[in-house]
């Protein structure tokens, strides 16, 4: 499928800040499931630099802006040809060993409740393949956490999301990672885009899902929010231990300002672009998923 993306992230500061530095991971991954036809990341008047491909295969680049900065807008536009590999990240070049993704963070730290959910999900599956076990964990997360926006926050941990029983794709993903770790399956957080359909959830901003390591197949994506594996409606950007580590945009400002954030994402079927473009990208305020911008005050 040909997917056309337009993703605009706009940071506003009530008091102009002296400096803004952002680390961007907004470029589609290179693997057999997607081919970039065109892709631009426009950072406005920022200076782009220090680009490199990291050990996990993601292109990373810096945008820096000298103040006074009142507004910073990042516009991602592009077209990607995708194919359905049933979630398998085939042909992706990376050097980080899968075992490094057994490491938990604050967001994915295991608890007795998370371990119990993993054990329940895998009950009677002792002889099952890792792939079947991964599917079972994904289903369990989907059933345990109802997709409800604005009930959780960017800092909500897997344990907290499970206790609340509600959340967005970030929470589903953190919980799935924690469950996978509980049964020694390497797992990581993946960011990207999802073309929205009537049935899917989480496509209003950039989307997130998990990848679990399956011997023989390699990394396989599991979207617990939608209880499925990523197909050709998905565009993969990058990965990390958790939402913070994988964030497509991480930024720090030098200055004391209250930040407002607006994100709009439109992902449409490029072949039918003329019909659906207008409905695809509605402007809306940032909820708990999507780009994360950390802020610090320096005086």
């Amino acid at each position, binding site marked *: 499928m040909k997917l056309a993306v337009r993703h605009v992230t706009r940071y506003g500061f009530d008091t102009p800040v002296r*400096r803004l530095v952002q680390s961007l991971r907004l470029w589609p991954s290179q693997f057999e499931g997607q081919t970039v036809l065109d892709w631009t990341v426009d950072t406005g008047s920022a200076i782009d*630099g220090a680009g490199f491909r990291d050990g996990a295969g993601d292109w990373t680049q810096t945008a820096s802006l000298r103040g006074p900065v009142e507004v910073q807008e990042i516009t991602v536009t592009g077209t990607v040809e995708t194919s359905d590999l049933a979630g398998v990240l085939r042909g992706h070049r990376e050097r980080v060993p899968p075992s490094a993704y057994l490491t938990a963070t604050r967001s994915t730290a295991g608890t007795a409740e998370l371990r119990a959910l993993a054990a329940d999900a895998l009950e009677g599956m002792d002889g099952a393949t890792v792939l079947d076990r991964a599917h079972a964990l994904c289903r369990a997360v989907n059933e345990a956490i109802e997709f409800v926006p604005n009930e959780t926050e960017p800092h909500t941990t897997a344990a907290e999301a499970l206790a609340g029983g509600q959340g967005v794709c970030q929470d589903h993903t953190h919980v799935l990672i924690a469950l996978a770790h509980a049964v020694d399956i390497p797992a990581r957080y993946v960011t990207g885009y999802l073309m929205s359909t009537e049935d899917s959830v989480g496509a209003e901003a950039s989307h997130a899902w998990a990848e679990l390591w399956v011997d023989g197949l390699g990394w396989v994506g599991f979207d617990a929010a939608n209880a499925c594996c990523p197909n050709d409606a998905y565009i993969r950007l990058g990965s990390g231990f958790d939402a913070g580590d994988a964030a497509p945009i*991480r930024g720090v400002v030098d200055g004391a300002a209250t930040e407002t954030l607006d994100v709009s994402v439109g992902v449409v079927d490029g072949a039918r672009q003329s019909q659906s473009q207008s409905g695809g990208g509605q402007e809306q305020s940032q909820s708990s998923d999507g780009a994360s911008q950390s802020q610090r005050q320096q005086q």
Partner: protein
Amino acid sequence: MAQDDPTYFNEMLTGSDVRAAYENLGRWQAEMPADLRSLKQSEAEQLFRRVGITFAVYGEGGDPERLIPFDMFPRVFTSEEWRKLDRGIRQRAAALNAFLADVYDRREIIRAGVIPEHLVTHNEAFEKAVVGMRPPKNVWSHIVGIDLVRTGRDQFYVLEDNCRTPSGVSYMLQNREIMMRMFPQLFVENRIAPVDGYAGLLRKTLASVAPPKCEGDPNVVILTPGQFNSAYYEHSFLADLMGVELVEGQDLFVEGDFVWMKTTEGPQKVDVIYRRIDDAFLDPLCFRPDSMLGVPGLMNVYRSGGVSICSAPGAGVADDKAIYTFVPEMVRFYLGEAPILENVPTWQCAKRDDCKYVLENLSELVVKEVHGSGGYGMLVGPKADKATIELFRAKIEARPENYIAQPTLALSTVPTFVEEGVAPRHVDLRPYCLVGEKIELVPGGLTRVALKEGSLVVNSSQGGGVKDTWVLAE
């Protein structure tokens, strides 16, 4: 001199015979009148206070400006003793660097089954962010501090390796400086190899690992967490000696492909950062987002070849106590040589059999936290009371993977000035090996001494002091 305990190797005496290396010092001490001695001791203290060398004890409160006690009786190595240590230290520093280059690249040592994968990759100190990176000259740990203890005439053990930012070298330099100022005659009577070349070698080492994008003379800076850090004195002392800027995170910024230093004459590009802050705080855009000490965007510039960071982020995976056990294997694996320096036999409580042995022999062992440092959270079995031993038993049973144990080593003693005169006190040694284009090692190091009678804990945070360390010239 106090009667010697034969359990411990006395570096000056065999029975009542004074070893040749110590002859001059024996006479010097015997001839020193008591009033001169106390005069000199207070002079030394004043000198240390004047240069501002103080040590804050982590997590213990109290006076952060406390002086680390200086003992005037030097510790002496013959050139022959040093030759072996010198070779062993360089060998170990080379192997540790080869290990780091390997585990962030092809992981041959894991593939070969020499080190279990999970100990490396599932380790807090393993940095995913630098996998596939090749720092200049493929050096990861540029200053390797190797803690050594001596238990016999020819018997040395490595207690631990420090591959991140080992501190204490300012004491090595100041101890010598102050001894030379107070007792110039000693340096006429004895041919002592100088250590004052250290700062020049450090500068040369750091400049030799300038990044690929650096043209011309590299601009080196020291990055400090600030004046509230316990080693701040050392940071400013080394910056002074090397003639480089001492900066905090807020003095630097990232723009485009480089890191820049704010100066009154405008931004100045920075090429090499000798950082004295932990990985987690280096860059809020890569590691802890709440870090105020680092430089946002630094890691992107590092990874794209615009700046060098010494030691490399991720270097800590080589000095983890669980990895320590394998260093002799690293020497064989990477260098194809027999290890010159030995490890202390170590039991891993993570292993069931080891743990059983440790729990059965707690009163004879030293137990350490795998990730701990500075002598905190440590049990010295033979010196501990029953309650402390039981406390550790519970701790180990709760989290066995968090502990290792070693035999209580019979640390050698060196004569030390005490209230009653001179008495043997236990010592260790931390030499500082520099790794860049070449491996450099000044003849000497920091000797730490346990000032309390019978104590085997030399950490300055636990009542240890320091001594000047002499290597006699050939």
